[in-house]
């Protein structure tokens, strides 16, 4: 699956350009954080890269229907038990039954939900739901995992727990591609940064370089908290 290459990708909704000629390469390595103010096109870019949306111009390779796995800002949990939620996508992906059980158990242990396996998934707390969504995606053992603001509606403790899980998934060799509006979180997790502004990639750099001093005026303004949209 990797590297995933986007070349000159554009996307518009109702005539309004959301993304305009975006090019980037997702290669194995440390997490890629996609940063930018509200409305920069971060979520749309993730959906294009994952394969939920088709670019109107440009192309994304490899040309699979769906690339990797994805966790959404508001977790979409099935009206089933925690365990059934974990097994559902694995069954769709053709993971053998015994292997499904093994992975589900390991994933539950990793996110600290082992004791809740038989609970209805939608009765979990917000933080638990997001951890389950992460475990469900990680159990697919994807090469690349897209995360769309996974901590947007979580409190600090739940956010820390989710970040710890993300780190562990990344350490196993899964490429993380993630959006966030939380600069502290970006500093904690990012290996590389793609800075998006008004539908264009303004900067793509290592996290170290970007946070030490962005090359672009927009990037600098964003880090100062002055670039709001």
């Amino acid at each position: 699956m990797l590297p995933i290459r986007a070349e000159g990708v554009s996307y518009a909704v109702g005539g309004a350009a959301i993304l305009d000629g975006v090019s980037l390469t997702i290669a194995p390595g440390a997490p890629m954080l996609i940063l930018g103010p509200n409305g920069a096109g971060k979520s749309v870019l993730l959906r294009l890269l994952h394969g939920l949306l088709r670019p109107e111009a440009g192309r994304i390779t490899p040309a699979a229907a769906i690339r990797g796995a994805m966790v959404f800002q508001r977790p979409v949990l099935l009206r089933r038990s925690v365990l059934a939620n974990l097994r559902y996508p694995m069954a769709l992906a053709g993971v053998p039954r015994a292997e499904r059980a093994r992975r589900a158990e390991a994933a539950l242990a990793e996110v600290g939900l082992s004791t809740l396996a038989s609970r209805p998934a939608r009765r979990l707390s917000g933080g638990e739901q997001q951890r389950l969504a992460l475990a469900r995606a990680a159990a697919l053992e994807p090469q690349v995992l897209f995360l769309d603001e996974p901590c947007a509606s979580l409190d600090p403790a739940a956010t820390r727990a989710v970040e710890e899980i993300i780190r562990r998934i990344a350490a196993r060799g899964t490429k993380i591609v993630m959006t966030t509006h939380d600069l502290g979180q970006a500093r904690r997790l990012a290996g590389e940064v793609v800075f998006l502004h008004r539908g264009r990639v303004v900067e793509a750099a290592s996290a170290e370089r970007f946070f030490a001093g962005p090359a672009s005026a927009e990037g600098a303004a964003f880090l100062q908290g002055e670039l709001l949209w």
Partner: protein
Amino acid sequence: MQDLGSAFMAAIALVRDGDAGMLAILGLSLRVSLAALGIAAVVGLPLGALLAVARFPGRRVVVVSLNALMGLPPVVAGLLVYLLLSRSGPLGHWGLLFTPGAMVIAQAVLITPILAALSRGVLEALWEEYAEALRSFGAGPWRAVPTLLWDGRFALLTVLLAGFGRASAEVGAVILVGGNIEGFTRTMTTAIALETSKGDLPLALALGLVLMVIVLGVNALAQVLRDVALRRAG
């Protein structure tokens, strides 16, 4: 008023004495309506789920037609089935006219659009919520149908009850294709119609009361089952 009072007493007497004739009629009513519900569920629920997820030209026309068919008069459904099953009709050789089988078919025809239209509405809301995640898992619309039917099971129970209520309460279809033959195709509703036309209003009312209590009981039972299951499954 006096009629109501004596009807009430007659209803109690019917139930207390376990009147064999009434029990047979009641049993047939329930068997016919439940069989019709089973057939309509097997056809109507997947159809509703498919309509919820599929996008094709003319979909709106299908949805509107289905919604309109919810108001299909029972007597018209009965007439259609009558024409199909009558000796000179295309399915005349089945020899089903004026049998309980014909009544099952007529009620199934009547309530299949109801189940399909109502489940379409319920499952479309669920699909809106699930669509992106299911596509992310690689599930296309076809694969989504069984998922939606299972995950929408509690809401669909209410849909089934609506269908059962309509089937067990109608008289026009079963009287046309069943013929109201005593001991063979007489149901609660056709018996009520008959007793009313004979002028035995207390007996007609008593049968009506029994029918309403049965329907109420079925609904209450389903509601309890739903609540228990919902508490356990979320």
